[in-house]
């Protein structure tokens, strides 16, 4: 699904000449993506090794008041992608006449940030010059599995030193904006001040050995090199750091709009942080749209659904995935979420045992005892829960 959305979004990087964005895009590393052999619809060699044509990915985007819908389509194997997207791409760029207030695109895979991408010589050259990075570097490798946090780290360290030593190339506004985003993200979100040790004071550059490294200064005084942070902190702060950079490069501030994809957002996080991570992201980047996947009931347990906050469960199999809307889970216990939404078998659990007893009495025709067990289950998971309703209404249990 994420592959499909990323591919669809690549339509904005159309390099058609004479288009308004031509210069902007042509000097970036981005382009429109065709259908990759990693697409699940691609058949293996012994079955012909190609797609069943025509093949397409279609998407729809809200841009302020306007709606843009487009499609990347290949009719046959010997033709490229239909150019219908080009006009839509123009429509997209027309919404940003002066290339100002551009949307951030970012994607963080489940292997992020463990696998580091190599920097191209072009980007390394830009960094080495000491000059501000061009605006379109904000889309540098935005959709890759590997991380390019290294670019941002190097850029931050360089600028931090330039500001510190009054070098004219230093950008104090940039340093402050990025540090502020990290500060905002790490400050306690709840009245009960959970995770106080997570709160960051600032980010600095420090000489460690031969190199200057990025160091996180926590509010409680601890100083830890960014790359030596515990994995949970490392991943989530890398994400914030990356979004802040892309945003600043585009718009000279860190409060962007746009869309960010995070695969398995709970990875390595302490349960109490996993529970808060969505709130923290929304508090820090209020105008960003987050598309997030998770395997953790903690992430979704305190998630209140409304028009702007949606929750879907991925069902079906790999070749025919489908999405079903999930009812509001707010206030449900983790255990019930695991069982009713994440379809984790209730095996060996208390509820499973009770459900087994319920079925036993029902099948034995002892309604009084079945009811007694059902009441207990209702007390535990709520009589409105899917778990309860499915169990009690299932005619197979009769």
């Amino acid at each position, binding site marked *: 699904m994420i592959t499909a959305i990323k591919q669809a979004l690549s339509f904005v990087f159309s390099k058609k000449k004479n288009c308004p964005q031509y210069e902007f895009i042509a000097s970036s590393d981005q382009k429109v993506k065709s259908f990759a052999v990693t697409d699940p619809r691609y058949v293996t060699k012994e079955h012909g090794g190609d797609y069943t044509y025509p093949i397409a990915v279609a998407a729809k985007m809200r841009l302020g008041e306007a709606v843009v819908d487009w499609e990347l389509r290949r009719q046959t194997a010997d033709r490229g992608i239909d150019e219908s997207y080009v006009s839509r791409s123009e429509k997209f760029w027309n919404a940003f006449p002066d290339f100002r207030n551009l949307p951030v695109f970012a994607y963080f895979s489940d292997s992020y940030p463990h696998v580091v991408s190599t920097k191209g010589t072009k980007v390394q050259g830009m960094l080495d010059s000491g000059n501000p990075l061009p605006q379109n570097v904000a889309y540098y490798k935005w959709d890759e599995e590997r991380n390019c946090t290294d670019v941002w780290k190097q850029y931050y360290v360089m600028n931090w030193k330039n500001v510190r030593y009054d070098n004219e190339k230093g950008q104090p506004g940039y340093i402050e904006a990025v540090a502020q985003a990290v500060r905002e993200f790490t400050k306690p979100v709840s009245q009960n001040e959970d995770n106080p040790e997570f709160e960051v004071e600032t980010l600095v550059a420090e000489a460690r050995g031969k190199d200057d490294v990025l160091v996180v200064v926590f509010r409680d005084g601890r100083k830890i090199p960014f790359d030596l942070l515990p994995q949970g902190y490392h991943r989530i702060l890398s994400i914030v750091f990356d979004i802040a950079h892309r945003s600043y490069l585009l718009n000279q501030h860190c409060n962007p709009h746009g869309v960010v994809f995070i695969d398995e957002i709970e990875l390595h996080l302490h349960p109490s942080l996993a529970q808060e991570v969505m709130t923290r992201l929304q508090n820090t980047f209020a105008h960003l749209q987050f598309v997030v996947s998770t395997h953790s009931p903690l992430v979704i347990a305190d998630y209140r659904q409304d028009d702007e906050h949606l929750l879907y469960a991925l069902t079906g199999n790999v070749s025919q995935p489908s999405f079903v809307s999930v009812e509001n889970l707010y206030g449900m216990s983790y255990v019930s979420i695991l069982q009713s939404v994440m379809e984790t078998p209730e095996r060996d659990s*208390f509820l499973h045992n009770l459900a087994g007893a319920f079925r*036993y009495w029902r099948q034995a025709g002892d309604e009084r005892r079945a009811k*007694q*067990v059902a009441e207990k289950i209702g007390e*535990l998971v709520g009589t409105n829960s899917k778990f309860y309703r499915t169990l009690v209404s299932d005619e197979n249990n009769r």
Partner: protein
Amino acid sequence: MKTIVKRQHAAAHALIDGFLSGNKERHGGAYAGDLYERLSADWTSRHTKTLRELKDILLDEQQGLCCYCMRDLSSLPDGEKTVEHVIVNHPDSEEEYKRYLGHGSQLDEADMISAAEFLDKQLPPPPYPHSVAYENLLISCNGRCHIGVNAAFTCNNKRVHTFVCPLPLMPDVEREMVYSSNGFVTWARETNTDPDRMATEVLGLNHDVLRMIRRLWCKMSNMGTDVDDRDHEAIILETLADLLTEGADDATLQLLFMFRGDSWYWTLLKQFHYFKDKF
């Protein structure tokens, strides 16, 4: 619980006599040291541990059952069978020692004095020093009744040094210990109202697991099912219905489910076959 009748004085005394004379010999003609500790390290002329032989005698007269909770210890490794001092090994004083007397138990007739007095007088037995006296020693389980939990919840290791009436040595204890169908046990002659001092509580005999085990035995007895029946699901579910009617808490219900299938807990339950005919 059941009265343990001390009948094997001859064999047991022979062991203790051998140990005590050896102790005296090794300490220049005087009894010395923590006698029970020395007994634990003593070997007979047959090259077996004295304590091991004594334990065999004790277990035999208890028919292999723990003196307090009635768990069958015969299939368990030696380390899970502990030696219980009815009168604690180290009473604080002679008064503390005497608290155990006068309850109509076999201790009253035993030819025994406190270990402190014995070491003081330095006279050969009888009377025997209580810390190694056959009349004062029983076999108890190690009090572990949760899988993977390295803590004693019942019996000797739960009691440690707390005073408790010499119940297994009292003649009517079998009648006086009343086991209810919900698994609770009460002692009819209990005079303490403070739960910390009640015999059944000091010994942890109303621990959740023991209660559940006795409840299940009672249920089996009512249902006429045998513990070795291949599938005991019906017993569990009937008991669940009882517990729900009683308004039992979730922890109790979850404990019940631990007895499903061929679990560790069901194996433990089988070791309490004493309760088969108790209800």
